[in-house]
């Protein structure tokens, strides 16, 4: 379809069921398939995605793009799809208009030709993480399941900050792409060359390092002495955010004692962490008393600190005092530390939803846009205007001026594609160029060494 034809169709010159009379009407009654086709033809940033997934094809002839696996969710699910060029990809997207696109690993050969080879195996893959708010259901009090709100979204903000911190500061990775997964979670793609080449064992080790397991009792398994990296995360990120979240989520049931059953269970269970029965009773008493003005959290902290001071006087065993700090730590880690699905990060051949894919599961059909980790405090997908939707961008297209090009630049998505390019893609390409130069230099040096020998 040419641009002119598209515009005509959008403007609706024929009397069809979907006749549009004014330019400001929305397109919510266009069938999903049509909207997706329009999206893939004009809006989905194919060239930018190609620039990303082709890694250093722009420098070398390694055929990264053709060896990359894609998967389409149409009426049936098909994986091991591959394409030779961005145009090829786009044509297939339009033709098939999948409601979900997945990106897989790089294989040793073109996935479409896998039946022609004896060994078909993944060779490189970005290090990925998937965090989902449903995993926080045991501690969330405002929502559960697929439902999310501003209050519990803060948990995702914390997760982004913690993970970003550890991946960059500890592991030294620099090229992270954070993406909103369309409904209730986030994905992280670590695209450094070192990350892409990690073995499954290394990925598992790394994921286990970051992950803190939640035991059957519902509390996390914190090992002491705490790893300095985890400790730093606690001191610099978790402690602060907890002060806000404890109010928003009402972890201790101050506001409504008859709230959800798991909340009350939580409150009662907290006291189980305290072995000193006198202390436990004291806290319990203050919690249920009518005269207390302080929040339960503050009472707990107060009582524990007081107990710690007293124990110091009583005995010289410093270790025993640690118990009280540990209790606070267990509470904070259990409620707000990132809950990873480490299975996603371990495997090389795991498929993950593509950035700029559309989440068709909800009414709004949000687009999976990148998130800037430095500004993630301001990102709130529950805000109606925050995340571009399929309907919204198609609408934008329709409203674009006659002389404008029909692409994402005329839509709400522009800001996010620009972010993708400027904050992520350009630095990554610069890095790849640098690595390429170093390779050439070292090759030259080797040749010279041989020649001089």
């Amino acid at each position, binding site marked *: 379809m040419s641009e002119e034809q598209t515009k005509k169709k959008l403007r609706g010159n024929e009397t069809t069921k979907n006749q549009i009379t004014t330019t400001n009407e929305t397109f919510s009654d266009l069938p999903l398939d049509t909207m997706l086709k329009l999206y893939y033809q004009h809006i989905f940033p194919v060239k930018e995605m190609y620039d990303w997934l082709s890694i250093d094809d722009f420098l070398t002839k390694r055929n990264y793009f053709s060896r990359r696996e894609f998967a389409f969710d149409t009426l049936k699910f098909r994986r091991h799809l591959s394409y030779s060029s961005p145009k090829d990809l786009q044509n297939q997207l339009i033709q098939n208009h999948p409601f979900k696109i997945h990106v897989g690993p790089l294989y040793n050969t073109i996935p479409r030709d896998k039946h022609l080879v004896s060994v078909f195996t993944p060779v490189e893959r970005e290090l990925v993480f998937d965090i989902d708010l449903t995993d926080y259901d045991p501690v969330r009090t405002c929502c559960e399941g697929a439902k999310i709100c501003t209050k519990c979204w803060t948990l995702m903000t914390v997760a982004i900050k913690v993970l970003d911190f550890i991946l960059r*500061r*500890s*592991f*030294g*990775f620099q090229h992270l792409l954070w993406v909103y997964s369309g409904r209730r979670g986030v994905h992280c793609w670590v695209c450094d060359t*070192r990350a892409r080449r*990690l*073995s499954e*064992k*290394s990925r*598992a*080790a*790394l994921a*286990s*390092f970051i992950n803190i397991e939640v035991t059957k009792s519902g509390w996390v398994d914190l*090992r002491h*002495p*705490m*790893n*300095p*990296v*985890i*400790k*730093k995360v606690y001191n610099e990120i978790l402690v602060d955010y907890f002060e806000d979240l404890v109010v928003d989520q009402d972890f201790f049931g101050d506001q409504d004692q008859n709230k959800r059953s798991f909340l009350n269970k939580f409150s009662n269970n907290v006291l189980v962490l305290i072995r000193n029965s006198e202390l436990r009773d004291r806290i319990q008493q203050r919690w249920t008393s009518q005269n207390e003005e302080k929040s339960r959290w503050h009472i707990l902290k107060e009582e524990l600190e007081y107990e710690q001071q007293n124990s110091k006087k009583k005995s010289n065993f410093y270790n025993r005092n640690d118990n009280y700090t540990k209790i606070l730590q267990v509470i904070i880690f259990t409620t707000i530390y990132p809950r990873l699905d480490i299975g996603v990060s371990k495997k090389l051949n795991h498929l993950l939803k593509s950035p700029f894919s559309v989440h068709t599961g909800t009414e709004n059909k949000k687009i999976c846009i990148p998130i800037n980790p430095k500004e993630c405090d301001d990102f709130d997908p529950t805000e109606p205007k925050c995340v571009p939707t399929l309907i919204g961008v198609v609408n934008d297209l329709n409203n674009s001026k006659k002389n404008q090009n029909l692409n994402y630049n005329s839509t709400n998505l522009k800001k996010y594609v620009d972010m993708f390019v400027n904050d992520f893609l350009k630095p990554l390409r610069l890095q790849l160029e640098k690595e390429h130069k170093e390779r050439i230099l070292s090759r030259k040096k080797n040749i010279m060494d041989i020649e001089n020998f």
Partner: protein
Amino acid sequence: MNKVEFTPKSNSQENVLSFYKEPPNQDIEMSLLGKYANERLQVLREIEGAKLQGLKPTSKEVMKVITKHLPIRSQATKKEVEKDQISHFILRLAFSQTEESRRWFLSNETSLFKCRWGMLSSNERQSFLKRINFGHKFFKIKNEKLREELEGFVDLENNRFCKVPFEDVPDMVAMKRVFISEGFAKFLPQIWQDKRMKKLLDGLKDSYSQSELASSYFSTSKVNLKDLVWLSARSFPPCMERLHTSLKQQHHLRHWGRMQYGLFLKGIGLSLEDSLIFWKNEFTKKMNTKTFDTEYGYNIRHNYGKEGKCTNYTPYSCSKIINLSSSPSEFHGCIFRTVKHESLALKLETVGQDQPERVQKILQLSQNKHFQIACQQYWLLRHPKETTGEPISTLTGTIHPNSYYNNSIEYYKRIQEQSKNKKITQNQTNQK
């Protein structure tokens, strides 16, 4: 003269500790090869024994045997290095054949490494790490802020840290036991000794091609059918003797009994043909030949690796036999465990009439569940006046029925030699 080709890798060794990355490459005599292999095997067995008894591998007994056969000191002699390298690789070859032997070897070699590492001083350890080109720098924590962060997590007194890419130590990373910064895992070397060995051992899993070399449990000599009768009475361990007798009486043995005894016979050198004749002879006293051929013949050939996936099964070790489950109507397993106290006492008294103390000792050991040591004592009971020290270690007891058998054969050979020499000297004196 049989020669095997290999030569030693590096010339200027310091201590003898090694990760055995490359096999040696020199000429060596077969007999020396056997000697080295056996001595290392003794060390490994001592280690296994210590572990079975719940002792740490760094116990005195183990260290004694290590110092005797595979000593470790700052300046190792060329011979010590040669012996260590060769014995390791020849055993590795020998034990590569079955999953069980591989596991046994890896587990005990790990412990051996741990012991010897424990015997080195801090400087010697550093020099070892340098030598194997562990390749990664040692550094001090100068940054005050960093020191504060690491407080409580590591012992900052000994502040020579090791820095490796985190991919090199996945197990420690997974357990959060290392500090990670800038993509490197930073830690004190003591912490990782177990895990580093694991990495080595993963590499060790490369198997060599099947070798004709028998492990020391296999007898190199053959055994004739007709000798089985008196051999079983004289040199078989009590568990096999019982199986032999039961087979003769019942003309049948159930599955585990057939496996335990059949593989043992293979180990002492009974050929497949003779084995088939032997079992057929007994079984057909109660069934017809056809049934035997179809039901049992196949399994015997399978045991010798001639059927199915052709695995050359090794005879069961004591630990395996002890753990076999059995019912009253069966005769396999370890007699010191399965036979009732009264029956055991009766049997022992018949056999060891002249050594009542040892009999009591055996009975007590059985009651206290030290079955293998009881068996070792039983060996001494049956082989009196053993003069060359204890062929079976008191520490471990008997660990394999075939080694019980081999030791018995050696013993009787020695007796023969001694009486021959006696006769010669007697003749000489007579002539005079």
